[in-house]
C-alpha cells in the first residue's frame, strides 16, 4: 500500500470473503492490496484466512473423491422399465384391453367350436400347429402341463389356444407382443401360479377376423 488506499477493517475483510472475493480470485487489485495489508497487522484475520484456505483445500480433496460418483446402471434400467410400462404397446394393436376383449371373443368361439365339432369330422392337424390335449376340458394348471406347452413352443411350433381354429390359409398374421404369463392363463394356456407375474415375449397367430388362435413362446 502506498498510503493512499483506505485501510480495511476486519468486518470488511470477512464481508469480502463471504462474497467469494479473495486475493487471486474475484477481488480487484485495490481490494487485494488492502486485504494483504490488513492480514499483515491482524493476527485473528490471518488465522481466519489460514483456516479458510485449509478448509478450501480439504473440501476440494473431498470434492475430487466424489466427483466421478453417479447412480449405478441398474437404476436406469429399472426406470426405463417403468417408463415402458407407461406407454401403449408400440408394435402390436393388442394392448391389455384388446387382449381382454380377444379372450372374451375366444371364449365365444370356443363354445361355438364345441357345438360345431360335435357334429363335424375330426379336424386334420395343421403342419406346425399342435391341437390342444383335449377338446372342451379346461387346461390343467400344473408344472407338467406348463412345461409341455413351453417345450412345444421352444421347438418353434405354435400351440393352439383353447377354442382356437387351425388356419392354414394366407389370412393369418403373427403379432409379437410382450405380456405377463397370467395373460396367457386368461387365454386358456396352462400357467404356473408362482410365475404368473413374469413378463414373456410371445407370438400370437391371429386369424383374419382378428382373433388369436395360437401362441408361440419366444426365448
Amino acid at each position, binding site marked *: 500500500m502506498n498510503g493512499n488506499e483506505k485501510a480495511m477493517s476486519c468486518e470488511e475483510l470477512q464481508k469480502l*470473503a*463471504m*462474497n*467469494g472475493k479473495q486475493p487471486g480470485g474475484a477481488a480487484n487489485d485495490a481490494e487485494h492490496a488492502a486485504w494483504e495489508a490488513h*492480514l*499483515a*497487522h491482524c*493476527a*485473528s484475520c*490471518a*488465522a481466519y484466512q*489460514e*483456516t*479458510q484456505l*485449509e*478448509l*478450501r483445500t*480439504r*473440501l*476440494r*480433496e*473431498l*470434492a*475430487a*473423491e*466424489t*466427483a*466421478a*460418483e*453417479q*447412480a*449405478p446402471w441398474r*437404476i*436406469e434400467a*429399472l*426406470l*426405463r422399465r*417403468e*417408463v*415402458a*410400462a*407407461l*406407454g*401403449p404397446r408400440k408394435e402390436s394393436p393388442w394392448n391389455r384391453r384388446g387382449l381382454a376383449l380377444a379372450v372374451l371373443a375366444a371364449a365365444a368361439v370356443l363354445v361355438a367350436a364345441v357345438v360345431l365339432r360335435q357334429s363335424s369330422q375330426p379336424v386334420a392337424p395343421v403342419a406346425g400347429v399342435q391341437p390342444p390335449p383335449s377338446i372342451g376340458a379346461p387346461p390343467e394348471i400344473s408344472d407338467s402341463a406348463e412345461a409341455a406347452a413351453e417345450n412345444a413352443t421352444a421347438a418353434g411350433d405354435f400351440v393352439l389356444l383353447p377354442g382356437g381354429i387351425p388356419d392354414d390359409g394366407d389370412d393369418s398374421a403373427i403379432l409379437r407382443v410382450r405380456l405377463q404369463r397370467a395373460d396367457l392363463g386368461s387365454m386358456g394356456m396352462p400357467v404356473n401360479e408362482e410365475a404368473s407375474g413374469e413378463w414373456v415375449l410371445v407370438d400370437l397367430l391371429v386369424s383374419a377376423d382378428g382373433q388369436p388362435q395360437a401362441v408361440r413362446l419366444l426365448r
Partner: protein
Amino acid sequence: MGTMPTAQNPPEDDLLRRAARGEEAAFVQIYRAHQATLYRFALRMTGSAWNAEEIVQESFMALLRNAERYDASRGELGAFLFGMARNFVRKRTARGPAELPFADDGELPFGTSAAAHAGARGGVSPAELAEQTQRIEQVRRAVLELPEEFREAVALCDLEEMSYEEAAKLLDCPIGTIRSRLHRGRALLAAQLEILRERPRKVVNR
C-alpha cells in the same frame, strides 16, 4: 444445467411430456442429463450410497408421475427435479442423523476408495495415504453434521463446485441466501475441524 434446445437437444418440457407417455428415448435423455448431479447431491447430503440410489429412483419416478406440473416458464427442469430430490433427502434425514455406514464386506465409505487408488497410482506412501484418507473422512463427517440448509450450500458450491447463481437456481432462493448459508456452513466446518486438529493453531502477531 440447462442447454439450448436444438434438433439434437429438444426442449426439456417436450422430452418430459414424451417420457410421461412412455417414450424411453426421451426419458433416457432427461435421466442422463441430470442423474449424476442428483446422485452426488443425495450422496453428500445423506452419506449413504444406498439412500442416494433410492433418492435418485424416487425423484425420477416422482418426475414422471408429476410431469404435468412442470412449467418451463417458471424454471429449468433440473431445478424442478432438484426440488423433489431435496424433499426425499429431508424425509430420510428427518428419520435420524446422516448415516456413515460401512459395507458388510468392510468396504470404506464413499470418498475413500478413490484415495486408495490415487495413492497406488501416484506412489504415495501408505502413511501419507492413511493421513489423506483420514483427512477426507474428517471433512466428510463434518459436512454430514452441518444443519441441512448449510450442508446443501456446501454440497453444491464447494463439493459440486457450482456458482452461487447455479446453486441459487437449483435451491430456488436468492443468491445472497446462498452466500450467507455457505459462509456460515464454512465457519461451522472450520470450527469443527479446528477441534479435530491434533495441535492448536499458533496465532502469530506480525
